[in-house]
């Protein structure tokens, strides 16, 4: 059946996220919170997460362009990113954020910070590119199944 095939596809995608450690167990905890009354909870959370995080990253990138760098703003945003990424289970993104806050900014290493932020951006974009189709597929599938 088509939907069965799609289901399998969705499941495979999901598993790959865990295998690649793009997601961690927090994600499964979120899934457990889903219920009949809000079956799209996880997707809603991620929609919000992506929206905010994209804005955060852009702000950071802008801040990195100013001279001198407004480290407070960058710090604050990184902190925010840390909290939200951790809460949704965005494992690799979180790791990158931690790297920046711990290693680079602390030492005032400008170039290193810039490089790390680039890496963070890359990781985040990749994460988003993976999760969004996943949710779209899920959504389409559930709609199809309702029919």
């Amino acid at each position, binding site marked *: 059946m088509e939907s069965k095939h799609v289901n399998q596809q969705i499941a495979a995608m999901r598993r790959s996220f865990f295998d690649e450690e793009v997601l961690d167990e*927090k994600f499964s*905890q*979120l899934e457990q*919170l889903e219920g009949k009354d*809000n079956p799209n*909870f996880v997707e*809603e*959370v991620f929609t*919000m*997460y992506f929206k*905010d995080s994209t804005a955060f990253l852009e702000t950071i990138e802008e801040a990195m362009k100013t001279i*001198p760098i*407004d*480290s*407070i*703003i960058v*710090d*604050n945003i990184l*902190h*925010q990113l*840390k*909290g*939200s990424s*951790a*809460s*949704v*289970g965005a494992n690799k993104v979180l790791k990158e954020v931690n790297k920046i806050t711990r290693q680079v900014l602390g030492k005032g290493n400008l170039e290193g910070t810039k490089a790390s932020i680039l890496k963070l951006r890359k990781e985040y974009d990749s994460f988003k590119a993976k999760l969004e189709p996943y949710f779209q597929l899920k959504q389409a599938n559930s709609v199809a199944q309702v029919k």
Partner: protein
Amino acid sequence: MNSSSGKSYMSTASSSVIWKAGGDVVADQFPAGLRVLVVDDDPTCLMILEKMLKACQYNVTKCNRAETALSMLRENRNGFDIVISDVHMPDMDGFKLLEHIGLEMDLPVIMMSADDGKNVVMKGVTHGACDYLIKPVRIEALKNIWQHVVRKRKNEWKDFEQSGSVEEGDRQPKQSEDADYSSSANEGNWKSSKRRKDDEDENDERDDTSTLKKPRVVWSVELHQQFVAAVNQLGIEKAVPKKILELMNVPGLARENVASHLQKYRLYLRRLSGVSQHPSNLNNSFMNPQDATFGPLDLQALAATGQLPAQSLATLQAAGLGRSTAKSGIPMPLVDQRNIFSFENPKLRFGEAQQHVNNNKQMNLLHGIPTTMEPKQLAGLHHTAQSMGNMNMPVLSHGSQSSQNNPLLMQMAQPQARGQMLNDSTVGLAPRLLSPMGQPMLSNGMATNVSTRNGVPENIRAPSYNPVSQTSSMLNFPMNHTSELPGNSFPLVSTPGISSLAPKVAFQEDVNSEIKGSVGFMPSYDIFNELTQHKPQNWELQNVGMMFNTSQHSNSLRGNLDHTQSVLVQQGFSTGQNRNSTVISKAMFSAGDSTGHVNAQNGNQHLNSLFVDNTVRVKSERVADAAPANLYPDHFGREDLMSALLKQQDVIAPAENNDFDFDGYSIDNIPV
């Protein structure tokens, strides 16, 4: 104001937890239905938390702004059982919120953050959080939060039972209510660092918090006169609330009321006398080293560091800091002072809270040296603040950081100075006003933004205030002195304008019942406090509100402040300061405008003109000129402050500041 009886237990039926007298918990489905307020500026986290809490069957209210949360809590004092708050929020520091909640509502608060650094967690402890969760928060961690509610109530019950019968009578209706137990005696055992017992005689002076929940007592002039007479009769060292109460023989006056008033009075006296006067009040042991640091020393140190112009220092000292000169011999190295200040933020804030409640010594203890200073300073200020308003406290507490907020400083200091002057019911003490107040601030000024990195320079305020207050008090003092302060009453008549402000305000205490016995003093002052604190503190706002509209709610004011505060808070480090000053000025003005109280406005504007014109504007301009990345240059602040202060003295001298004619007590009405 706190009508616990009016507040019905809101939660769902299934969740009703009925606390019987005696502390037994009768709950049908506890902890289900526990009413949780969760505050987090991150919508993703907020969403997840809400979901998890709901999964625990709690009754969840979510909130993405601290101010909103605070007003929710205030409007609905007994509507929540527990609060969970993020540490890192743009509009208000989570710890500030924590303090407020603890002081005003006495609810258990759980802090959470992605930051698991030891310092932050410690901060949570010292500020009285009952738990600290690291993000990502697991649902398992949330399942057990009800324990904090139970524990707290248990403690409160224990305290309640241990306390005197007076409390019982007052608190009777509350007991049957839900979570919110009146705090007075309850806090005795509460280990919250906020209300640590200090060395004071009256250990049960958690009254400030408790009085919140009791019918407010208006400390009128006559009442205060009676109080002072009783205290003098007993001897300040021996004056205990019970005896004072007996001597006063005022029906309807509770021991706690007297106790809290006594506490404030002591702080005030201590401040006047320059710290060493009332050993019992604060940590004497701590004080000594601290005094050195924060007292006149600060001036010296500051002067030494170039932050305080030498002439200012001289002025200050000449003006009558003589008393504190004893300490001046111990100039603390700048470094130390900075260190002290790095501690100060938490302490100061804490102290702030503590002053309201208690002496804030305990806080300091945690932080070591700086702490000692805190209580004294805070105490002193607090005392003044009590009659004058909260300004003192906030100033001190937030004193730690930069000299950035010179304008703020100016304004804050001014009111403080005045407050001090006014409160000086014993003329002799007046001269000493200066030292305690300014001290912490001065030292604060020296410290650069150290501790809290949250980008929110809470400390902004502090430093600048010191010099200002110092000078202003000094300046005012002579005036006060000569004006024949009535022995028992607040020097209502004495100093021009300024004094009129304070007493009136002081007696307005009960107008804003939310304030625990502290009266808002100068609107501008409070505003600045607010601004610097990044949050509209209830006390201060209340005070401000009182100032402005003695009986009006300070919402509009708060609104202005909130806005500006958020602006402030979000400033980057380098750019923040510049904006701060302008924001602050705006806030002041807007605050003044928003109140709508004629007198207040006049007063405020008057104040503004006094303070702002000289300081804020100047500063704003300067700031604009300065490179955006610069913090307010130190030199800029100090000199301006001093000159502004001196200038203002002149302005103040002619007693025409009747603009400060606030409602309760106009100069005319005050019996001299």
